[in-house]
């Protein structure tokens, strides 16, 4: 069972790449009563071990990244506005004119990402996305001096957005990564058939250094990377995957082809156990995690919870897909660990 209140809490915590501490602390608190072994790697990943009823033939690692896309403060300007560098996959069309939060040493500070008023836009500017280099943050400072007292270069900035829930869906900020974290936390509450290693990784949005080092540290025989898969709207006939039809298995992303045996095996497991599951009908998408997971030479597979508007101020997911993600990962881990 997914703990929806926990997911809500996780989504509310800002955690841009390289600054995942608060997300990690919350996950560590959740792991304490359920994991048999927990440690934190030099790059801040959590590696949690859970003893199963039997020793595995193949050591399986499940992982999900804790970080989210956002911005870093690059420069405080003399007029009190703040320039930003984007970190991670933010949709280029939805950046300006948004409420934001700056994570400073003294706590989170509300601000906004500015936008030129529509009344003053030229014909060419109308409706066009503002490139990240032209964005700036406003924290209400009227001078550089006032802003520099509050914000430092390197501080992380995230969109501020509400959480909402219906009977069938959840919607909130940072959902793309945190839903997979919640799914992994939920499966750790049950004793697995075989010993299991679960990693909650850092830097997923910026080069996947977290997964790479966690995989190196754990030396698993197979890795299942849990994340989100960009889903089409119900109006999109060519959508690579859809909300409500189960977690999406990737056979390929641009720059990585996943292990065919693992892909077919997991699909077979899902069909056998009647766990809803879909094939992601596309070969695009970010491959950093998949490549990093398999860099020690092991088999890897990416499984994503279908997600509308990943990286946007709010994303949308089906509750059933997150719950089925936990079921599928548990079943797949068992099947792989058994050597089947």
């Amino acid at each position, binding site marked *: 069972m997914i703990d929806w209140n926990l997911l809500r809490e996780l989504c509310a915590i800002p955690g841009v790449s390289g600054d995942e501490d608060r997300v990690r602390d919350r996950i560590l608190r959740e792991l304490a009563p359920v994991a048999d072994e927990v440690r934190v790697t030099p790059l801040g990943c959590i590696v949690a071990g859970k003893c199963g009823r039997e020793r595995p033939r193949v050591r399986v690692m499940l992982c999900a990244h804790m970080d989210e896309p956002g911005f870093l403060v690059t420069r405080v300007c003399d*007029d009190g506005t703040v320039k930003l560098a984007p970190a991670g996959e933010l949709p280029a069309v*939805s950046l300006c004119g*948004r409420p934001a939060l700056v994570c400073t040493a003294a706590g989170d500070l509300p601000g906004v990402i500015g936008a030129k008023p*529509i009344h*003053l836009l030229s014909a060419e500017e109308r*409706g066009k996305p503002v490139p990240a280099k032209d964005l700036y943050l*406003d924290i*209400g400072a009227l001078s550089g001096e006032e802003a520099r007292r509050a914000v430092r270069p390197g501080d992380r900035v995230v969109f501020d957005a509400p959480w*909402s829930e*219906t009977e069938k869906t959840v919607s909130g900020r940072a959902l793309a990564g945190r839903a997979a974290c919640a799914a992994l936390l939920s499966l750790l509450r049950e004793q697995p058939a075989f010993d299991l290693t679960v990693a909650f990784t850092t830097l997923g949005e910026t080069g996947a250094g977290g997964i790479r080092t966690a995989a190196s540290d754990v030396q698993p025989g197979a890795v299942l990377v849990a994340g989100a898969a960009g889903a089409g709207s119900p109006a999109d006939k060519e959508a690579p995957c859809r909300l409500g039809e189960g977690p999406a298995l990737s056979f390929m992303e641009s720059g990585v082809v996943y292990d065919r045996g693992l892909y077919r095996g997991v699909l077979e497991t899902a069909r056998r156990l009647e766990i809803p599951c879909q094939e992601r009908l596309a070969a695009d998408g970010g491959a950093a995690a998949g490549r990093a997971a398999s860099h020690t030479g092991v088999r890897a597979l990416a499984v994503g919870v279908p997600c509308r508007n990943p990286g946007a101020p709010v994303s949308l997911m089906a509750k059933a897909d997150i719950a089925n993600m936990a079921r599928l990962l548990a079943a797949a881990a068992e099947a792989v660990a058994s050597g089947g």
Partner: protein
Amino acid sequence: MQAASGGRKEIRMEQLREQIFRLCAAPGLPGDERGVAAVLARELAPLSGRVETDELGNVYAWLGESGAKERVLLDAHLDQIGLIVTRVGEDGLVRADRCGGADRRVLPGAPVVIYGAEPIPGAVAVPEKEDNDAPLLIETGLDQEALSRLVGPGDRIALWQRPAALLGSRVSCAALDDRAGCAVLLRCAELLQGEELSCEVVLQFSALEEIGGQGARAGAYRVRPTRAIAVDVSFAAQPDVPPEKCGALGGGPMIGFSPVLDGAMCRALRALAERLSIPYTCEVMGGETSTDSDPIAVSRSGVRTALLSVPLRYMHTPAEVIDLRDVEHTAQLLAAYLKGVRE
């Protein structure tokens, strides 16, 4: 003494901030301003013995000497920009169009609230490809059956907003255009409490400004003022805007000068600001002002009209920013002007 007066000022700013947040939290989309009108009626109750509404959704509050020869209309608009439901699709997506001049650039991925049979949270879908003519799609997570019970064509949609106190006296919220102006009128009425006025004053909170000013037009027709001052927001200096178009956050009211505004009134307001050491800037426009002052000035046989604007950044986005001191200074200037209106 100074510390005490500084403390009072801070408390005053605190109260002003909370009042503005109350005004912004209530929905008031063009043609459906009932939410904010109800909040406003509560705020007006202690300030005026005569509060009225009309068929269009305008709210009026009367002050000063009843039946005086001079009747001054003060206008601020109630409505905020948003979206409007055009269709609930069989695919469970809500189609919408803009209702007022929302900036399309801030819509993809933006959280919204649909005011159907109950408030329903949703988000504007990030489009598969850039197409400014495509209908806006809103996803709520509800299926078509539930949606068709709760949502229908014409329902209004507000951009989700989060009232936030920024550094100093700056605040951010979605509907500050023109709840900031509403707050100016409320504060002005408060400053005039117990004052002997030689004129009659009508505070008019107008519906429908964002789609053409019908509320103010009908209101001015009804009130028959001898002169009027509209209070709206205008552009505060920000990095990507030419300085000649702008006031400044904390720079005080922007006093409008334009062919459609009454030159003598505008100069009188400027002279008054100088005499009272109230900071101000001049906002010069070459024609119509795109505010309620345009329809008010041509009401009936014509009404001498001025325009004061609170400087605001990021207009028509959910991230609008103002400085509370500008609200206070605009209210002080208005109150001083009204005290000087004689027959």
